[in-house]
């Protein structure tokens, strides 16, 4: 089974998986709108149709979906990047899962409200005072002027200092890695992906990986890996052969 050809039928997108990734990378599809669970279910269904467990496909799929999920989760909690980065990976995953669950519940609640509004929307009631009602005279009890002073003090109080640590850790755009890898390949014909991303956060590594996929899709690089979990080697594709290959294999990122 070829993961990139996995046919998807989601609310936000219909078509092969590789096209979805491309559109996400080009920011033509908002990742927030993509139902990743739907992709997983579709993949598992396809997998179940087969006689044999396709380990290669599973591995590739896991990598891609993990990257998508992390991107999506980061997109949802951009401002929390710093806070989450301080946590252990398991804690961060737990925290993200908790918040995603909270958001999901609120989406459910929003769905309930939408249904309720549709069902109750034809209830008309008076929005203003009654036509012949006695004029409403709202007399105000005497007020303490000190309340005014307190409110001004409140408005003049310095807000608690906000940590700006996350500014430095802000999620780098894919383009940043594209440039970085292109620059690297202009100096060297090949490099070791794992060495390049060493020391980066997991989210940054995921982005770097997506940048790698984008370069491969544009046929500017070829990727090889000696064995699962072995270092990923990235080589520059020479211009002539690049032109030939342009139309044929847009994606070819399978573990060797």
């Amino acid at each position, binding site marked *: 089974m070829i993961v990139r050809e996995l046919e998807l039928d989601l609310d936000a997108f219909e078509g092969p998986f590789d096209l979805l990734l491309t559109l996400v990378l080009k920011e033509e599809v908002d990742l927030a709108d993509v139902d990743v669970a739907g992709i997983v279910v579709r993949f598992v269904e396809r997998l179940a149709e087969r006689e044999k467990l396709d380990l290669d496909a599973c591995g590739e799929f896991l990598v891609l979906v993990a990257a998508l999920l992390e991107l999506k989760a980061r997109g949802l909690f951009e401002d929390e990047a710093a806070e989450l980065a301080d946590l252990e990976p398991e804690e961060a995953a737990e925290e993200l899962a908790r918040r995603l669950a909270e958001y999901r519940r609120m989406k459910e609640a929003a769905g309930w409200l939408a249904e309720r509004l549709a069902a109750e929307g034809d209830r*008309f*009631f*008076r*929005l*203003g*005072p*009654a*036509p*012949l*009602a*006695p004029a*409403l*005279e*709202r*007399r*105000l*009890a*005497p*007020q*303490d*002027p*000190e*309340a*005014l*002073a307190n*409110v*001004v*003090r*409140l*408005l*003049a*109080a*310095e*807000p608690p200092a*906000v940590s700006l640590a996350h500014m430095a850790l802000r999620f780098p755009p894919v383009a940043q890695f594209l440039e970085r890898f292109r620059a690297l390949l202009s100096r060297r014909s090949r490099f070791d992906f794992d060495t390049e991303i060493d020391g980066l956060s997991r989210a940054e590594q995921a982005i770097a990986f997506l940048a790698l996929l984008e370069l491969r899709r544009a046929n500017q690089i070829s990727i090889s890996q000696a064995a699962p979990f072995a270092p990923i080697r990235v080589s520059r594709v020479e211009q002539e052969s690049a032109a030939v290959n342009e139309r044929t294999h847009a994606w070819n990122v399978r573990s060797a």
Partner: protein
Amino acid sequence: MERPLRLVTANPLDQLARTLEALLVVASAPLPVEELTAAADDERERIELALGLLAERYHEGRSGIVLEAVAGGWAFRASREASEACGRLFERPVQRGLSQAALETLAIVAYLGPCTRPEIARIRGVAADSAVAGLVERGLITESGRDDGTGGAVRYRTTPMFERVFGLESLSQLPRLDDLPGDVDDLRERLHAVAEQRSA
């Protein structure tokens, strides 16, 4: 409760009368016959017949809801019989306090002098439209010219009623803010600076 229903159902105008009841209970101004006719999508004569029916049903002494023809059209009102109860409902105990939004808006106008809605919104960090409208309605603030002479936004200042409610002889009696700049321009600057920090 059974008999009147059957009586009403027998009347071909019944459904129309129910529609008119519904329109009248939602209206916040008397409804002219033309508007009722258009909304009910029926003939004028039938509307008038149905109104006659309703006027009989919603009649002083028979019902707490009374249908009345007034200058602008038809409207429901409370029966006179219930006027004492309505009086108690509307002259409810004086309102205790002001909402936080109202208090903040009032304090800004009181301490900074005439200000516009955009300025109040900037200092508070949220739109001030409804708070300003509420305070104007209660007579605690009032319009006071426009920013930059003519073209700008409307400015608001506090009223003598404000001074009465807060027990002040004049604005100069406002409590002093010892910890804050005494000068109005400096205070204004401080409030703007903090608001900017808060929204950052």
